[in-house]
């Protein structure tokens, strides 16, 4: 059976619903040796500010049951070096590039987005208003409804690229943030970023991360992420990009049935960098078995008990 894996995010048509999650795939090129980047629906690159950033002191990660905490602190090369040093090769490899945009201020989000809008090969902007690991910027926009509306509207005014605000789960009602983003002109929302968390070494009585707190990702968060994606998809009309702990084709399908149009995979790619082809064939096999012709037919297809 010939199955159609195409999905649409705003004006962007992706050949399949699988994307790398920001911060878990470098700038994509690190993987060019072992993964055909053009085979992914999109490559979402590490979060970028206007300028270079050093990030936090190590230790930056620690394992927890079925998951991990990270506090990388958004180390990165800044938007100018990214455009100069990484984009030409990403274009050459045929990657559909989505840039995760960060900012310490409203002006910085706008400026970085404006710069990217003129760059050939940038397919969309994922607006990172949800990083739990830095003091300034990021989450301070994502935890307040009016700030979320304000930053999304401001970026909307300077770009025609598909705009995907990335939401934090560290709020009481994620779906109200999805609604605020939609009202401000977002083309889609992505969720979840990591859950603010902490681990302590009881022998040394020190936190296991130098930053004290970090973000929890991996299979441990999947059921909460599925619930949040479901709630958002119920409330907004724009597509929802779902993530959080996806490690198998069945996990991808779970998110799509809950309402995700596309998905991102982060932590699981650390364990299996070759996961992409496994996920794709698993989805195709499911569709053939369940007689589903188009993957979009699965989106929000959950059946209720009564």
């Amino acid at each position, binding site marked *: 059976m010939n199955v159609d894996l195409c999905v649409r995010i705003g004006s962007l048509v992706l050949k399949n619903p699988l994307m790398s999650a920001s*911060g*878990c*795939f*470098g700038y994509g090129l*690190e*993987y060019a*040796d*072992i993964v055909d980047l053009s085979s992914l629906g999109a490559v979402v690159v*590490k979060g970028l500010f206007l300028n270079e950033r*050093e*990030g936090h*002191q*190590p*230790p*930056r*990660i*620690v*394992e927890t*049951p*079925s*998951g*991990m905490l*990270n506090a*990388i602190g958004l*180390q990165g090369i800044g938007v100018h070096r990214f455009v100069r040093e990484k984009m030409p090769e990403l274009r050459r490899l045929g990657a559909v590039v989505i840039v995760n945009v960060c900012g310490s201020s409203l002006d910085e989000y706008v400026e970085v987005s404006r710069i990217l809008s003129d760059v050939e090969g940038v397919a969309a902007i994922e607006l990172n208003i949800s990083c739990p690991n830095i003091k300034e910027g990021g989450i301070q926009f994502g935890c307040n409804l009016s700030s979320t509306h304000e930053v999304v509207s401001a970026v909307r005014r300077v770009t025609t690229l598909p705009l995907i605000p990335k939401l934090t789960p560290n709020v009481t009602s994620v779906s109200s943030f999805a609604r605020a983003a939609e009202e401000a002109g977002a083309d889609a929302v992505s969720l979840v970023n990591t859950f603010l968390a902490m681990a302590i070494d009881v022998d040394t009585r020190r936190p296991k991360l130098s930053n004290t707190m970090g973000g929890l990702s*991996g*299979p441990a968060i999947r059921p909460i992420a599925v619930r949040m994606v479901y709630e958002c998809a119920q409330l907004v009309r724009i597509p929802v990009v779902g993530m959080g702990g996806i*490690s198998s084709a069945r996990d991808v399908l779970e998110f799509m049935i809950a309402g995700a149009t596309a998905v991102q995979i982060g*932590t699981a*790619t*650390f*364990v*299996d*960098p*070759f996961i992409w082809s496994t996920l794709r064939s698993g989805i195709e096999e499911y569709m053939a078995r369940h007689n589903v012709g188009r993957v979009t037919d699965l989106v929000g297809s959950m059946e209720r008990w009564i």
Partner: protein
Amino acid sequence: MAPIDLDAEVLRNTHLSAGYHVLVLAAPGIAAATRPGQFVMIRTTTGTDPLLRRPFSVFEILRDADGTPEAISILCKLVGPGTARLAGASAGDRLAVLGPLGKPFDLVAPPSEAWMVAGGVGLAPFAALTESLAALATPTRLFYGGRSRTDLFYLDWFEARGVRLDLATEDGTRGTHGRVTAPLEAALRVMPADRPLTIYVCGPEPMLKAVAALGRVHGRPSQVSTEQVMGCGLGGCYSCVVRVRDESGTPHFVRSCLNGPVFRGEDLVWE
């Protein structure tokens, strides 16, 4: 060369002591491609706990009778739940092994000598390095320190390959009583300045720092094999960073999986 991911069969698991063992893995492709100092990422379970792979230096590159590389070994120290799984592995088990990864050591040739300095499980990259240096006929020494006599392994192996050994134990049960930096410093003092040598070092961070400093004081280049906590080993996650100086002398965090794990001692900035 692109790293390979193999479902490698465990050929042997040799316990050296209560805390150390050597795991031999059938991995011909990885064995053929590995250069000394490179590492592999090993999955210790097929489940989600512990979740991440663990980085291990390639210890030995093992060959069949014709000299064709057929297996690698890794030297493991028992530290947590992941390494406990590896300690319990037996012949016939299979483990996902990804590699080779990272930048290898630069090999020095005669008249230069190679002085290897190992602390505990920091011996790990030096068996493969010894074989490559032997092929160049580079004179080699190994300064090797552990807590006790029972924490020093493979001494006969290194001696059989012509490596001159200088041992140290913290409890004084073998070699110099104290840290391995003591015999190293003594040897550096008496080495004539016109005889070139390069220091290769792997071990706990305070030791790396001390040895890199000794190299600087005595005007000897060092190659430092760092051991950071790693998420992916491929440059995806930015967790394994160390601080190094760039050409202008400005320190930056760089990923030890891509830019290392081997760095020039003079480039590393210690916290």
